[in-house]
């Protein structure tokens, strides 16, 4: 126990003696891990936003007024029978007006110029598989009640493919930044060791084992990694809180789940510590040969 306390003490004495180098390493790890953490959060935001769209209406079939609710109801039951359709429901003119008022609640002047009679009734369709939207579209082309078909799936598909690219870039960034954090810590520890190589040689001469020499450096590296990871987590939390305040009626909502943020922050912290451990272990190898 007293040996462990001695080694921890040695680690913090080393950190104090190499304050400038250690600060540089902490900042470098902070930048790397903040970018990695930022990429994780960005991926989550893209996923959450596309999920919101996916859960919404895939197709909106705007209907002509001819035939009235009876004809509309017949078409609704036909659509519900399509194998591609998971669910379809009818939104009459009053419902459409209500939705319009909700969407344009911040623009009362516009709302005042529109009445329920101006808006078409519609059938909202949720598909089993969004990639089948073209089949449904094909079935409805030329239908006498069809006023216009709005296909949200096209946008979703584009977004999903974009999400795939963004995810790959994000994962690439996470891996790259993680690796750079390890290299940075390894380099810092190497510099610290190089500056103290004579001391290490003396320690070995008086019978210090490799672990006795290694442990303070590993604690030093892990502390640098944890501090850098902690700063990165704090910075991403702060940035997320700022982004959350952006009005939510624009295309993307900058709101990730707090549980997600917390779990990833812990992951980043753990990664920082691990990067420090691996980095310092790598940095020490050359100097511990007997």
């Amino acid at each position, binding site marked *: 126990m007293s040996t462990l306390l001695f080694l921890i003490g040695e680690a913090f004495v080393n950190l104090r003696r190499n304050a400038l180098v250690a600060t540089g390493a902490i900042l470098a790890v902070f930048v790397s891990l903040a970018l990695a953490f930022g990429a994780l959060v960005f991926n989550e935001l893209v996923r959450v936003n596309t999920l919101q769209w996916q859960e919404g209406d895939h197709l909106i079939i705007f209907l002509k007024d001819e035939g009235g609710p009876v004809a509309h109801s017949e078409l609704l039951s036909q659509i519900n029978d399509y194998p591609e359709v998971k669910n379809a429901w009818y939104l009459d003119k009053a419902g459409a007006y209500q939705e319009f008022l909700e969407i344009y609640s911040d623009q009362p002047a516009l709302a005042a110029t529109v009445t329920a009679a101006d808006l078409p009734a519609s059938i909202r369709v949720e598909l089993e598989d969004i990639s089948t939207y073209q089949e449904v579209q094909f079935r409805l082309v030329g239908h006498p009640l069809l006023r216009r078909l709005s296909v949200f799936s096209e946008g979703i598909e584009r977004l999903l493919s974009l999400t795939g690219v963004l995810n790959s870039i994000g994962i690439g960034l996470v891996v790259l930044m993680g690796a750079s954090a390890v290299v940075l810590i390894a380099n810092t520890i190497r510099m610290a060791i190089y500056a103290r190589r004579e001391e290490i040689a003396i320690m070995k001469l008086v019978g210090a*084992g490799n672990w006795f020499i290694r442990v303070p450096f590993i604690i030093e590296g892990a502390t640098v990694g944890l501090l850098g990871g902690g700063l990165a987590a704090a910075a991403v939390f702060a940035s997320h809180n700022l982004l959350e305040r952006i009005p939510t009626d624009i295309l993307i909502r900058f709101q990730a789940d707090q549980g997600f943020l917390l779990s990833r922050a812990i992951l980043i912290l753990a990664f920082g510590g691990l990067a420090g451990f691996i980095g310092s272990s790598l940095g020490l190898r050359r100097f511990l040969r007997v």
Partner: protein
Amino acid sequence: MIRLHNVAKVYDGGVVAVQEVSMDVRKGEFVFLVGPSGSGKSTLIRMCLREEKATRGKIWVAGKDITKLPTWRVPYLRRTVGTIFQDFKLLPTKTVAENVAFALKVTGCPRSIVRRQVNTVLELVGLSAKTDRYPRQLSGGEQQRVSIARAFVNRPPILLADEPTGNLDPATSVGIMRLLDRINRTGTTVMMATHDFAIVDAMRRRVVQLDRGRVVRDQSGSGYESSDET
């Protein structure tokens, strides 16, 4: 206590430092290794510490064949052999007491025992008033005393000294030699490489003379030069 059998050391590039050296140092003996620069004295000491590996031959230290010692056991060997160097090799960021304590801490010795042992040995070397000084605040002689204290603090059966008086003036050297003599009288085997003929002549102990890596003289109660020549 130390036994060498047909030991040779050839460095990379074919430089022969030691060749066919055989000698036996008994428990409690005080042996001087003498000879000109490059004769192989320091290499011999470094091989006994496993800082260098012998190219050929066998070396036993404290009963163990260290030529077969696995790397992970080397620190344990070094804890049974105290070492003193010309350049003191003290940790500059540690105080006198911390430097001495370090040799015990690496063995996992409890703090209370470390404190007691350090105080005792610093008293022995006459530095109990300077425990909180850093090496840079001490004279050469005092630094070498700290180095001796560190080498002796865990009561090793063997003490190896490589030119311990090489950086010291004659008067200070005498003090250091008296200290080594006192340690030797406690039963510790001492093997010391030196150029200092005055010390060797004054102490009249066993002298092993090396020349170009070979033992050319091994004589008890001798001076720096062969008794036959004087």
